[in-house]
């Protein structure tokens, strides 16, 4: 077994070179995918493109399911088990944003290029890489472009697939455009939501000057900041964005977006309760309507650092001179964890300005990123990632 894993390690530089040779195919896919807008819940056109790519690669089993996921299955020699390779399709940019992708010799630039057009481009191009490298797998390889992942999507696409796919899945690998070296193997507990404050129509306007949804949200923020957070289990409250008012007059509505993150699900629940109490108290004191809307959550868990899938992937990264950065994430892993499927998330290259309109990725490291994905895939396929 060891010699075979070593064979995979030895083949990595060759895979990296082949990926470089096929760069035009990958970059063309990147540009075409990236220029199709795909805000969460509106991913149809991107999925259609992916499915066409799967068809062109000769993948016989391909379909779009009820929640819009695009799935292609590359048949293995032994079809009892499956490996799931997944990349999320949606981006944080709506259709009104100019989605033009620029391709320079060393960089590709444009909204969503790192998160996650590159992940999808690798998924779309993988059948070509495998064919050119003459790699066949023992297990079925499920290539999945998942919908409804981000924000309010709450991983609905992947969760739906895992609930309804009735064949055993051996392992999951999530693909993210950045950062190369990322080796996420655990998910932290998370709840994501909004505090929405509205001034009612029949408000007592005699409280001249006091009335402002922004002031109330400010009050909520101050109180959230007073919540005591433990050092262990590691816990944080992230205030992501605030939005409120429109000009110089009284703001009638304000919204605060936040995430609670913790290694302990009990702690996530505890903080959620505390925020609810803060809101009830401020709401009854001010007479304003304050709503707490929690729309996404993840349970903590994952595979330990010592799990063979983490250990072997680290060795693959070392072989390719990629510095591994194992750690937790709030990505697709959570959906796998809920189903006890061992899974990791990998990054493909280095990037900058992620989730900004001038998001950029470095082209040259992509070839190592692809070699790492194919090496990991072969290692899982060869059975070298199973616990004794």
């Amino acid at each position, binding site marked *: 077994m060891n010699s075979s894993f070593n064979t995979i390690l030895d083949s990595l530089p060759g895979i990296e070179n082949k990926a470089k040779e096929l760069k*035009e*195919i990958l*970059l*063309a896919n990147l540009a*075409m995918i990236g220029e199709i807008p795909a805000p969460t819940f509106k991913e149809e056109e991107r999925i259609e493109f992916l499915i066409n790519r799967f068809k062109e690669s000769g993948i016989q089993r391909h379909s779009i399911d009820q929640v819009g996921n695009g799935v292609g299955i590359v048949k293995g020699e032994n079809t009892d088990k499956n490996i799931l390779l997944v990349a999320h399709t949606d981006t944080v940019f709506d259709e009104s944003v100019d989605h*033009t992708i*620029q391709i*320079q*010799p060393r960089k590709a630039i444009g909204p969503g290029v790192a998160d996650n057009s590159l992940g999808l481009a690798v998924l779309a191009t993988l059948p070509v890489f495998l064919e050119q490298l003459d790699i066949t797998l023992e297990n079925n390889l499920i290539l999945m472009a998942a919908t409804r992942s981000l924000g309010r999507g709450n991983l609905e696409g992947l969760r739906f697939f895992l609930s309804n796919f009735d064949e055993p899945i051996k392992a999951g690998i999530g693909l993210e455009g950045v950062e190369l070296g990322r080796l996420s193997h655990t998910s932290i507990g998370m709840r994501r939501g909004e505090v929405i404050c509205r001034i009612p129509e029949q408000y007592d306007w005699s409280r001249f000057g006091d009335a402002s949804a922004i002031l109330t949200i400010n009050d909520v923020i101050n109180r959230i900041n007073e919540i005591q957070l433990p050092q262990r289990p590691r816990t944080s409250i992230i205030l992501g964005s605030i939005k409120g008012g429109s000009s110089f007059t009284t703001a009638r509505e304000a919204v605060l977006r936040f995430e609670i993150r913790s290694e302990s699900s009990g702690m996530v629940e505890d903080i959620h309760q505390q925020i609810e109490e803060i809101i009830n108290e401020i709401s009854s004191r001010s007479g304003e309507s304050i709503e707490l809307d929690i729309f996404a959550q993840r349970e903590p868990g994952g595979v330990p650092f010592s799990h063979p899938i983490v250990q072997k992937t680290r060795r693959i990264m070392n072989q390719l001179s990629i510095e591994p950065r194992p750690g937790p994430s709030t990505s697709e892993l959570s959906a796998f964890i809920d189903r006890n499927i061992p899974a990791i998330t990998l990054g493909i290259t280095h990037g900058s300005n992620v989730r900004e309109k001038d998001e950029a990725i470095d082209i040259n490291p992509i070839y190592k990123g692809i070699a790492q994905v194919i090496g990991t895939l072969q290692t899982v396929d060869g059975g070298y990632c199973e616990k004794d």
Partner: protein
Amino acid sequence: MVEDKESQNLTISLCLPTLNEEKTIGKEVVLLKSELVDRYPLLDEIAVIDSGSDDNTLEVAQNFGADVYLADDILPDLEPKKGKGENLWKAIYQLEGDIIVYVDADISNIHPRFVYGLVAPLIYRKEVQYVKAFYDRPLAISGEKRASGGGRVTEILIRPLFSLFFPDLTGIIQPLSGEYAVRRNVLEQIHFPIGYGVETSHLIDVYTKFGLHAFAQTDLDQRVHENKSTRALGKMSFGILQTFLKRAKALDIISDMKDYETILRQTQAIDKRYEQKELQIVEEERPPMIEIEAYREKFNRTLS
């Protein structure tokens, strides 16, 4: 389409004329090479013909696998001239294809349809000689009448001129679009203004030599590129007018016309001061390529 092309033993070359297009050329080459050379071998060569860019256009294009040429290095015995039309004309000599597809290099929403949409009529219809692109994206639910979306120079200059002198050509929806595919045996027979007038002259010359049935048009949906200033459009119009009048004279459509001016006068304001700017624009022309001896030798052609 590739099978039909191969069954006819056709070869197709893509020419991308450039001048300082480093921002857009990378994606054009990557996308068209990957999709139409590697995946579906519709194109036999992709060539960038450059007017002397001082940015990294040539390096970027070469890096992604295009053949790159400086216009001045092609037919070096001829006196060099500068202009997009010069690049298009020299492509006839440099490239090998039976069909040459011209696509401007400043398109930011490039897609393989820009090429396969243009060559399809030439592959499927033998009588078609010249395929011109137009761009129209009707709203899905709108049944109302709308303008077909020609640019400002088209609507203010070209369409009125064609309406007066070549009414048949008003059917060309976007006469100035820079994307077209043409058979070699037509390209080698027509003049090439080296500047702004090249598209207009092609339409008139192909129409008078081969007739209206030689044309086909294809809807490429949408083209995104940088808008030109009104002043730049004025220069363009002046060049086009010269090309047009030259032909109108040669075809005896307008008689008793003196030689026209080659100075364009535009007014510009600096603070509250207004001044007139004079710009010499001479629309020089290249002869039909068939008249060039080196070309006849290379492609084994004779003058009829």
